[in-house]
Structure formats: C-alpha cells, structure tokens
C-alpha cells in the first residue's frame, strides 16, 4: 500500500468513525468481563476473541496514526469483524458498563465497506440486490414458475382447491417477503406459509421483483445500500397497495425492516411469527398438536430475539402446534448464537470458527432431548443443518411455519 493510499484510507476511516461515534465509543473500561458471554471466545479463549479486543480495534482507531493503519492492520480488522464476530449482541447484555459492543464492531464493517474491503462473498449478494432486486438474481419469470408449481403441490397435498400463491396482486392486504433461497432451494417453507395463509383466508401476495427479505447492506455494514434495498421493498409494497408487510422467517431481515434500515417504514411491518401468533389467537387457523408429536426445541435467532424483541410469539405458536415443546437453556435474549450469523455462513474462510464456536449450541440442543429444532431464520437453519451433521445430533431442523403447516386442520 503506497503512502498516499494509506493516508487516503486513514482519512476515510476517520470520516466513518466521526459519522458513527456514539456514546458507546467513550465508555469501555477494558474489564474483559464480556469474554465468557461470547460463543466465539468460549470455543477458543484467546485475547483476539474477546469482544473488547474486537471493539477496541475500531475504537482504538481514534488513537492511531495514519502510518499504523497499514495492510496488516486492515487484514486484522477484517478478520476481527467478519471472522470472529457474528454481531449476535450477547456481549451487550453482559457488558459491565452496558455498551452496545456489537454495534461498535459493526462500525468496523462500515469502515471496511468504505475502503472497498467487504468480502466478495457478501458483496456479490448485495450487488445482486441492488441490481436485480434480490440476492440470488431470481427473475420475475422464475418466481412465477416456481410459485405456480409450489401452489399446485400445495393444493394436491392439502386437498384445498382455493389455496394459491398470488404474485403482484394489487390491493392484497399483505405483501409477503421471502428469502430467495425459498424460491431456489427451500420451497417447502414457501409452501408452508402459503398453506397457512390459505387456511387463515388471508389476502396476500408475493412481489415478482422486490420480494427479498434479506439485506446484505446491513451485513456488509454498507448503510447507504441497506437503505436503498429497504426503500425498494417498501416502494413495492406501496405500489401494490398492500396494508402490511410480512417478513418470512429471517433474523436479520426482521431486524432491518422493523428497526435498523434507516428508512422510516411507510407500512406496518412484522415477522410471520407475529402473524401466526395472531392467527392462532383469533382462531383463524386450527391446529392439531398431535400431528407434531416429537419433542421440539426452539433456537432463538439473535437478530429476531435479542435485537428485535420477538421472543414470546414463537413460543406461544409452538406450544399450540407441537405436543412436546421444550426450551433450550439459556434461551430468549440470553440464547447463544448458532454461529452462522453476520454473514459468517457464507464465508468459506470462517467455516472452521463457525462450526467450532457452535459447539455450545450443539450441546444446548443435545441437552434439550429434542428430535426437532425449530428456528425462525433461514441462516440459522443452514447452520443448524451443518451442526446436525458435524455433531451428530440426529435431529430434524424446521422453520416454525413448517411446523404450523404440518399441524393445520382444514
């Protein structure tokens, strides 16, 4: 890195720091008490894995000189904020001062984004979202085709001729955002949601273009892109004239669209989990919990629970939909991250840390004695599926909606 480039980078960093410095930058006392709250540290108790070390890489920039911010430093910052932190925020709750440590670490991602150093594996889906409207470049035609055959299978399986998957239906009550992987690889999730909507006689629609519940601007720390992606989705909702946006089971999607997108949401926005809870409460769907007889436990996605406060709805739903629901310990806001959050799931170079740091989660699952692990997040589903193999848990991984669909009485 040339001296000029180094100086330019340094100035950019300082600008990002100035823009993001909050009261949380001023109060770390470096007590180290955050260590044992972090699943990455617990799996490898080294100084580099302490949340305070990761946060100090960002806060400490205020004390650095431009010549100290060299290639070596940038690589170590990248490793810290992408390879050693999922942004789960468990350290926040257990910090002796009460710092929002995870948000400080995320500023490190914003700095790297400003310097064009976001890992390619995270940048590609973001570019796709900005260019094609979704992270997997699903075209409108592909969307329609997939929806058509899923709807056909749904009617066949449920025996309900009225069930459908409408696309771009103007005037529907809700716009349902999905993870593109539901279109590409996990059609059962979409089918389950469509089944529940059908049973509840809901007026709903998918959008053919801006339907993506994920937001890689958030994961990459690129706030401008995050805003753009969220704005496009909300505009789609306005164009279709819907009254509510419902988010498919996605941890960070819920956090971004409900709280952190930087855009004032023009439409009420909630997770499908909250809607399922409402359907059950209002008696719009009837469930037979005997259809889910095996013991079910729940993994709380950090972004949905610790960052968005949706913690009781999924429990009420699972108690209605499953005969034997057992909590993991600890749970809710103190639950451990699955290890795959913050984009780590996509970063090949982090797979060792990702799987090792999740041993604590595997042990939680094992101790619950469950045969099924439910989780309202597709990233968690992917990670738990890998854990299932690595730690030989012999469990089934499911979304909450899929369990509800399975328990439906028509």
């Amino acid at each position, binding site marked *: 890195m040339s001296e000029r480039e180094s100086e330019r980078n340094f100035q950019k960093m300082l600008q990002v720091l100035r823009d993001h410095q909050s*009261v949380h930058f001023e109060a770390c006392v470096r007590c180290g008490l955050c260590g044992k709250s972090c699943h990455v540290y617990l799996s490898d108790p080294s*100084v580099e894995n302490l949340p305070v070390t990761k946060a100090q890489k960002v806060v400490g920039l205020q004390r650095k000189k431009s010549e100290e911010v060299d290639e070596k430093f940038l690589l170590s910052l990248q490793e810290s904020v992408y390879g050693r932190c999922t942004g789960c925020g468990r350290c926040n709750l257990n910090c002796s001062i009460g710092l929002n440590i995870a948000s400080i670490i995320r500023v490190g991602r914003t700095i790297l984004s400003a310097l064009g150093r976001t890992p390619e594996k995270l940048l590609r889906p973001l570019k796709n979202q900005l260019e094609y409207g979704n992270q997997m470049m699903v075209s409108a035609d592909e969307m329609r085709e997939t929806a058509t055959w899923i709807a056909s299978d749904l009617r066949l399986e449920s025996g309900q001729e009225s069930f459908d998957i409408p696309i771009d239906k103007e005037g529907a009550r809700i716009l349902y955002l999905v993870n593109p992987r539901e279109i590409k690889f996990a059609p059962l999730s979409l089918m389950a949601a469509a089944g529940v909507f059908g049973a509840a006689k809901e007026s709903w629609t998918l959008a053919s273009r801006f339907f993506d519940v994920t937001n890689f601007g958030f994961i990459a720390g690129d706030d401008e892109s995050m805003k753009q992606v969220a704005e496009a989705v909300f505009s789609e909702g306005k164009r279709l004239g819907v009254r509510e946006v419902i988010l498919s089971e996605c941890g960070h999607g819920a956090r971004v669209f409900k709280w952190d997108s930087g855009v004032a949401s023009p439409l009420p926005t909630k997770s499908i989990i909250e809607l399922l809870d409402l359907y059950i409460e209002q008696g719009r769907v009837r469930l037979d919990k005997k259809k889910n007889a095996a013991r079910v436990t729940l993994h709380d996605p950090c972004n949905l629970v610790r960052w968005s406060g949706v913690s009781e709805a999924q429990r009420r739903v699972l108690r209605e939909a499953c005969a034997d629901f057992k909590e993991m310990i600890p749970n809710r806001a103190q639950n451990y991250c699955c290890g795959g959050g913050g984009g780590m799931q996509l970063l090949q170079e982090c797979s060792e840390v990702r799987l090792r740091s999740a041993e604590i989660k595997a042990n939680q699952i094992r101790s619950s004695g469950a045969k099924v692990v439910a989780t309202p997040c597709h990233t968690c589903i992917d990670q738990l599926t890998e854990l299932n193999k690595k730690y030989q848990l012999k469990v089934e991984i499911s979304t909450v909606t899929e369990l509800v669909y399975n328990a439906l009485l028509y």
Partner: protein
Amino acid sequence: MGQTIFFFSLAWCAFFLSLKSFKRRGKGVTPPWKLSRAEVKGVFYNFTFLMSPFFKESARLYPKKFILGLGMHGGVVLALLLPLLWPLFEEGWMNSLAAMATLTAAHFAMALLFFRIRDRELRAISIFDDYASLLLTMFLLGSATLHLVLKTAATNDILLMSASLIFFAMPFGKLKHALFFFLVRYDYGTLLGKRGVFKNE
C-alpha cells in the same frame, strides 16, 4: 487554596464532559423528554434488573472481579463526596464506617490492579490509561482513608488534591465512564425498551 483547586477541577470536568456528550448527542441518544413509555421501561430495566447478577451473566461468571469492581466504585463515590459532605463524616460511627469503606475500596483497587497485571488476557487488552486510572483511584482512596482517620489540614489538602486530579483527568481518559456509564446504559435501555427486549431466561 485546596478548596479552590477542587472546585475548579469540578467545573473543568463538568465543562469538558458536557462538551464531549454534546458532541455525541446526535448519534442515537434520545432526550429524556422524547422517550416513549416503552423506552422509559427499557431504561429502568437496563439500570436495575439487567445490572443484577440474576440477569447479567458476567456478574456470575466473574464473581471476584464483579464484587471488587462494585466495592471499589462505591468507595470512589464516597471519597469524591467527602470534600463536599465533610461535616457528615467528621465524627462518630459515620466516620468509622466511611474510613472502613474507603480502606476496603483501596484494597479492592489494588486487587484489580493486581489482576490487570497478572491476568494474561487483561494485560493484553490494557493500555496506559487503565493503569494510570487505577493508580489515581488508589491515591484517592488512600488519601480519603488517611483524612478520615487523621483529620488534619494536611490530609485534607492531600484529599482535595487527589480528588482534583481525578476530576482533571476524567474527561480525557477511561475515567470518563463516570458519566458515560449512565449515558450508555440510558441509550441501550431505550433500544431494549423500544424493541421490547426484556425476557431473560
């Protein structure tokens, strides 16, 4: 003279800390008069339940450091209040109690310094500021104990000097957490309250 320097350091500290918090005001901190009911609940929760060992896991996982830290901070608050509330502590059981508290807190501060030097991880994350702040704190607690016991003009001057040093240093280093602790807990409390992140089981 000692009194003048003490009050000057207090004003200095208040000025610079206000300036610092004013600079950070736009970065998420909602003014108290704009808080919603849920946010007020969140702030209360963050200052009470979430600080208790029942809810805060780190307090249970690091019991020694948690107790030492708590005890030391109690002693520091008392020592800083001494010059202002001296008549209360001049004689009797209040004097004895305060002397014991500051002496214990001084030992706790020494223990924390010992941990910081001995513990490999803590040593690695520590910077000069951490050691300097602990030494200043120990000086304050020691001088407070000395004054509570001897009650001479000289010990009074030493206490005023150590308290002034703390106030002069406060806005520029780690000691500023004396103010920012409250701002941070308040700010994160509003986030918890607004989003409804309460349950810990």
